[in-house]
């Protein structure tokens, strides 16, 4: 296997290709749009979605090789590329991956074709523009996972923002303008301060005479800031990432954005864009400022916010009348687990956090797709408008049940593995936080099972629901990979864990946490 990859030089071009391909696709779509501007709507839609699916499909297929081609144990960046960009300012096009990034890149590339299938019939207005934006968004997201230059990272970070703003603002629901503006402003608020911090870091690293240095490896190893400076810089990064995660109390843009976004927007937002925040912590905020991040006050504040978010998100989920909002708040809860896991700084909890990242991407993505499916049929997301539809949509009911169970974290599904590892790891360093967070397994069951009951169980009392059609082959086909992933990661997560292990362990070591501590039992006194 390895030799095939070596023979075609896979690692030398794959990352660049992954970044360029979507942009090319977007260009093709825009060109098509000009040609189709006069013809009828149905033809426009089908040409747009077919082109988009083609590009996303190719993107997904070529990316899969990363799973095998990369050396996960190596401390060097894999598949790295360095090209000069703005040399006089010390800015380079520098990309590369490690185990954590590969897993997230594959999550992205594999989910995108499914989101295209998910919006196959629901995007009728300006389909070319929609899919073109989705493609540009993909480049932005993949770029964030790959960047090894702070400025390049910032460029990709902002590149994600605009397409998503437009997707919500143009193809969204009734309050789309409010939601998209809120999304934009929240994100900007954090990221502008991060830009300031990046510039400061670059100039500091470059010294008084030389050009600034934004190379990731340099700034993470040489940066020696005074305690105060480090705290301020960490604060700037923290704000940018905390908004994106989103951590309590920076989360209120999320429910609005999710509710108003079209299905594809919600899926991308929940499954991938939220991961940017946690990825940012792992890749940038923590390695750049290990002393600030492990400062007891900072650490306990972050963990407190994470735990508050976990419990708070679950409690607020319980009382949501809108299914999408319910899932949005449950995201706040799940992402709190990720932050808790990262900031507990043990191997188990960090790897668990990375698992929760992926699991949340899969389960919540699937939930939004399922919501999109019934929304297309009934044009409502209010839980109270449904009831008893397991009778008329049995396959939908089975799928929704499986995905909900995964989100609840029932063992055997992926959700359990992540939460369990986070909690068992976090318990070693933050026992109280872990115990409080563990109560969420109760609330999660309450809010999801209650919603499940009111949607698919109970009497089929509303006549509008009696005529609902069950899922068609396209919808089943796009859910099956997600269901398969749910069970695969639940039953045999070792391949993923092995791939993220080295990177996670490096982080934990750097943060002075508990990497592979040998447990020594001290006999307690009576």
């Amino acid at each position, binding site marked *: 296997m390895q030799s095939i990859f070596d023979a075609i030089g896979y690692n030398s071009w794959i990352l660049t290709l992954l970044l360029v391909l979507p942009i090319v696709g977007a260009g093709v779509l825009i060109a098509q749009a000009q040609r189709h501007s006069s013809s009828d709507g149905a033809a426009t839609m089908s040409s747009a979605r077919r082109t988009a699916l083609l590009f996303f499909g190719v993107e997904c297929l070529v990316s899969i090789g990363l799973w095998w081609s990369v050396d996960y144990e190596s401390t060097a960046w894999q598949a790295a590329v360095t090209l000069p960009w703005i040399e006089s300012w010390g800015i380079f096009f520098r990309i590369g991956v490690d185990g954590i990034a590969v897993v997230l890149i594959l999550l992205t590339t594999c989910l995108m074709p499914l989101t295209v299938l998910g919006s196959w019939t629901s995007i009728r207005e300006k389909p070319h523009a929609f899919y073109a934006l989705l493609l540009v968004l993909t480049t932005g997201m993949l770029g964030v996972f790959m960047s090894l230059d702070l400025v390049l990272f910032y460029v990709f970070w902002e590149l994600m923002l605009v397409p998503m703003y437009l997707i919500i603002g143009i193809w969204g629901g009734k309050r789309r303008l409010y939601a998209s503006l809120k999304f934009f402003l929240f994100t900007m608020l954090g990221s502008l301060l991060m830009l300031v911090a990046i510039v400061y870091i670059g100039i500091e690293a470059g010294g008084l005479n030389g050009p600034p240095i934004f190379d990731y490896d340099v700034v993470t190893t040489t940066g020696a800031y005074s305690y105060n400076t480090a705290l301020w810089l960490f604060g700037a990064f923290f704000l940018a990432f905390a908004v994106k995660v989103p951590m309590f109390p920076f989360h209120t843009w999320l429910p609005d954005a999710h509710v108003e976004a079209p299905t594809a927007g919600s899926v991308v937002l929940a499954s991938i864009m939220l991961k940017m925040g946690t990825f940012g912590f792992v890749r940038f905020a923590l390695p750049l400022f290990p002393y600030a991040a492990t400062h007891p006050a900072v650490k306990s504040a972050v963990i407190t916010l994470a735990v508050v978010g976990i419990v708070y998100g679950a409690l*607020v989920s319980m009382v949501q009348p809108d299914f999408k909002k319910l899932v949005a708040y449950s995201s706040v809860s799940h992402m709190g687990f990720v932050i808790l896991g990262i900031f507990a700084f043990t191997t188990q909890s960090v790897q668990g956090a990375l698992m929760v990242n992926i699991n949340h991407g899969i389960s919540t993505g699937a939930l939004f797709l399922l919501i999109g499916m019934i929304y297309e049929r009934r044009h409502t997301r209010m839980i109270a408008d449904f009831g008893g539809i397991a009778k008329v949509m049995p396959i939908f009911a*089975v799928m929704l049940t499986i995905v909900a169970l995964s989100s609840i974290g029932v063992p055997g599904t992926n959700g359990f593995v992540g939460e369990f590892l986070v909690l*068992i790891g976090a*318990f070693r360093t933050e026992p109280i936080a872990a115990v409080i967070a*563990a109560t969420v397994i109760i609330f999660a069951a309450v809010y999801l099972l209650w919603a499940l009951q009111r949607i698919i*169980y*109970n009497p089929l009392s509303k006549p509008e629901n009696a005529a609902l059609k069950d899922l068609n082959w396209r919808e089943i086909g796009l859910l099956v990979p997600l269901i398969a992933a749910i069970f695969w990661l639940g039953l045999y997560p*070792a391949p993923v864990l092995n791939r993220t292990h080295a990177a996670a362990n490096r982080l934990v070591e750097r943060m002075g946490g508990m990497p592979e501590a040998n447990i020594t039992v001290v006999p307690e006194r009576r």
Partner: protein
Amino acid sequence: MMQSVHPLAETVARFVWWLPALPLIGFVINGALSIYASAKPGPADPSANGHDGSNIGHGSHATDEGNHGHDDGDGHDDHAPTPRHRFAGITSIVGPGVLVLTFGLAIALFVAMRGVEMHEPFVSTLFAWMPVGDLHINAALQLDGLSMVMVLVITGVGMLIHVFSVGYMQDDAGYPRYFAYLNLFVFFMLLLVLGANYVVTFVGWEGVGLCSYLLIGFWFSEKANADAGKKAFVVNRIGDFGFMVAMFMLFAHLGTLDYATIAERAGQFAPGGVVVTAICLFLFLGCVGKSAQIPLFVWLPDAMAGPTPVSALIHAATMVTAGVFLIARSASLFSLAPVASLTVALVGGVTALFAATIGLKQWDIKKVLAYSTISQLGYMFVGVGVGAYTAGIFHLVTHAFFKALLFLGAGSVIYAMHKAYHATRNHSDDAQDMRNMGGLKKFMPVTWTLMWIATLAIAGVPPFAGFFSKDEILGATFARAHGSTLADASLLGMSGSTVLYIVWVFGLAAALLTAIYMTRMMLYTFHGPNRTGDDARPHLAEAPWVMTGPLLVLGVLSAIGGWLNLPGVITDLAPIGPTASLEHWLEPVVGEATARVAGGGAHVAVSTEALLIGLAVAIAIAGMAIAWARLKPSALVAKSAAAPATGIQRVLENKWYVDEAYDAAIVKPTFAVSKSVLWGGVDVGLIDTLLVNGSAALTRFFGWMGSQLQSGRVGTYAWLIVIGAVLLLRAFARVA
């Protein structure tokens, strides 16, 4: 761990993973059939015309009324003979078939185990499940005396109940779905008992909870059923929280979650230390949820909304006993934590008595049995709590026999009642209310006979199974009150021996009440005049052989189950069988822990033991006599003619209002706080309105202020220019 090759390694034991795999295969097949049938409704499929599958054993009183309330047009054609599911044939073979195979394999394993000398469990590792740093969690199965006993009970009783279900569920529209869930349940239950570490056990633990959820809400179109399923799952999750925290603590302090390694390293804990006590108490929280003890018992009575065979299998014989199993499995820890053990015993004793009081005044035949189950589970916890692990497991086994028999018997009765009401189109009377039964002895002689055997067994009348196991628990409790580590500890300011005497008295009182309510149930159901109604009466009949057959087997087991573990005091008197075979069988697993709890002196003289046995028998007989004396045939009236209960009776009928109290104290406040304080107050109010929109409003306000200067009036501008010029001049003048 195991340097030498385990004696079981070359035997059939290496196929141990087939035990859970077989039911899983059954689940896959039945599940696929179910989905296929509902996605592509064929002409013969009852669900095609929206038929709701309302049939036998269908819910309680409330459910039947519900049926009337919202009849959406399909309620009345259920008088037509319901066609069987089109895959009923395959399902009837696959569903019980995989259980027969599993049971066969279990027997083979049992035979193999008997042939070898086993000092350590046989562990079969399938693959590395969660290898993370120093945490190694394997998907591994463990075979030892304890898991073997459980496997035999699960597959044996499970097989009988599967066969029974073939008859009971035959007309249901969800027939393959039912068997899919049932097979899945057996899979998870086997995983639970076979797991070689806490995590695999936890997978089974949650999995059986999931199946319980799915099966309680099997007839999900009724809100009450769906509610009950959800309640069961959520309450169980409260317990699961405890289980998880216990696992975290074990890993943090011992660095492993494997049973074998934990047993080795448990000695690192100081006896009676805080950590081990906390671990045990958290584990016990899990058991309290799963096994429906105070304060988390409320889900089990509601769980009776599921089909009756489900109640027999899950909510009586197997799943609810998982808590007892878990404590026996963790005996090495519990034996180091006397305070935790005393808590277990006390909670068990209180639950046994409390549930029995409620059982006295229930009218739904399944509810009586549900409270009886809670009460009997309390006994088992007393057993494992006082360190008599064998006694607890022994009662678990005998209880599985006689309670499964009682539930299946009740199922037959309900089946007959429902058929009779169905035939006469009676929707107003409740097929599960004992006040509508009476005199069924005449119509269902086989069921009557067998249920009396079970009643005598549960009441503790010798020589039936329950007598031996219950007596062993009470005897052990009495014995441990002196000279054991428990007696030296203290709980709630009381000395351990006081606590144990209290538990013992509670146990005796519960035994009295058990005899009373069980006799009452039998009298109401089978004796006296029939109250079913004149037109329905001719339709009452015994269930088909596929249902009575399993009853017969269970009847035999309930009668002779006591021979599994005959006490020495009896075999000394009359050599009727081997002494304490179960105790020998479990010796490698719990022997050390039992000895640790018992200490040196926890034994009673033979004469005292004989006295205790006599007391227990007297109490059982007395209870039955009281019930017999108080419930004369003339006192048994139909539901429509019964006067409303008053005073304490009413409190008991309403289950001490525990559900209402929980609702008012926990459920409602949580929802209210979440809705108005957290969502309305913090999210919408504080963050969104005040901070987010507030900062926007502030910005807009400053903008407005600025815009006010921009009046468009040239005169104002001129004034401003002049004022500004004067101020500037002043400033310059000062500088100069």
